[in-house]
């Protein structure tokens, strides 16, 4: 009996984890590529095909699209791979706690301080050693103030009332040969 249990244990563990992963992928939009369910190379909805869009709202109600800093990488990756309401809201709350400064503010310290260059892996997160990676540099926005950066004058800071985080995935429409953005979850945190 003990021998049989020994032999069955690793396989049972595999089945249990994979079954839970299949359930979670369908219940919480978890990416099938992760979580031990062997769903890699089964769908284009991989972690790399998912991205975040983050919007901060000032006191005057004006909205700004911002990039999440590297120090929120762990929460950002979690929200992207497992976009539950709780994970997305937690990320928005973390972003709300940050200080946001005009992106053209240049401190004496380098703009990409070590804690901001953490290396996010997808759109919406900081890229290691790269520039801001913007596609629309015409509109001025805000960036998270680095931990070691000196505090800028008040007029350069934005008092953020609300942060909205959206988790998206890219999808190919084979008929029209267009890649489309499909929203998986949106969550917000307010002051």
């Amino acid at each position, binding site marked *: 009996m003990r*021998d049989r249990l*020994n*032999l069955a*244990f*690793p*396989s049972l*563990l*595999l*089945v249990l984890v*994979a079954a839970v992963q*299949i359930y979670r992928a369908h219940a919480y939009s*978890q990416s*099938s*590529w*992760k*979580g*031990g*369910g*062997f*769903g*890699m*190379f*089964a*769908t*284009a*909805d991989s972690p*790399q*095909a998912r*991205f*975040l*869009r*983050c919007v901060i709202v000032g006191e005057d109600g004006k909205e700004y*699209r*911002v*990039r*999440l800093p590297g120090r929120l990488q762990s929460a950002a*990756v*979690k929200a992207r*791979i*497992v976009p539950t309401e709780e994970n997305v809201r937690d990320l928005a709350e973390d972003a709300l706690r940050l200080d946001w400064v005009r992106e053209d503010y240049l401190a004496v310290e380098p703009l990409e301080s070590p804690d901001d260059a953490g290396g996010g892996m*997808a*759109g*919406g*997160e900081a890229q290691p050693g790269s520039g801001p*990676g*913007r*596609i*629309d540099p015409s*509109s001025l*926005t805000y960036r998270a103030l680095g931990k070691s950066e000196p505090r800028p004058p008040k007029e350069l800071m934005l008092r953020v009332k609300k942060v909205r985080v959206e988790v998206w995935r*890219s*999808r*190919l429409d*084979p008929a*029209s*040969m*267009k*890649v*489309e*953005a499909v929203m998986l979850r949106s969550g917000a945190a307010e002051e």
Partner: protein
Amino acid sequence: MTAKERVAEKIAAARALWGTALDLDTLEVAAVLTLGLLLLHAGSVWYLTVPMTVLCIAGFAVRSLLLNPTYWLVIASVTAFANFRNWYTVDNHKFLTTYWCIALHCSLLARDPRRAASLQGRLLVGLCFLFADIWKVLSPDFLNGTFFKYQLLADGRFSWLAKVVAGVPSTAQHVNSLRFAELMAWDSGVMSAPVLGGSRLTLVAQVMTWWTIVIEVLLAAAFLAPWRFLSRWRHPLLICFALTTYAIANVVGFGWLLIAMGIAHCPQEARFTRGMYFACFVFLHLFLIPFRNFGF
């Protein structure tokens, strides 16, 4: 001694070494391969790499550790802890590696460790492919070929195949990468962007889709079903899968693990099959050479 005789002597020595390798104990070979995998491809977090390096070097240095159940329990605990800490970011084969280490521990506690490890290897390979099949059937974008179409256009690992086989021109690939960047940029409001295909994109995507489905279903059936007419195809199918899959999307860690489990399932007298696994292991690493850099 002439140069010709020296070459003949070297060839004879290589043959003798190859023969010795084929005669090694199957379970020990599987254990050594697993240790090599853990040493080089376990992961990058310090709480995994530091203890794993010490444990693997100890395993290579002290042969008796290879077949010690407690040793494998310690290794399994370290990998399980790292998986638990990084549950949603580690790849699936890291989970499979942990199950395999647990399987080695459990097998070494059994009355006949070689038979037990053979069964464990068979079950883990079979179940891994069974769940891979389940996911492919459950995913709406796999069976209609959209998945491979998307990967051929978006995934850098497939860019060589997209260009040479599917006929997606380099300029189209460059445009596509800009379109994906535009869609996924943090300050983007873009909701859709057209991408450029190739003359044989749909055909190649369909062939890849059905090849993947067929070989993975056959693998799951061959490794899990008890029927002899299927079971005799286990090793050829697994070797064929490794050679065709990892030549395109090379995940060395996964291929290495499948080879280790395949060898564990290999009977001691099946020298030719073990030789094929060794050759497959070499090819797995040859596939890492970036042939595209040579202009092919």
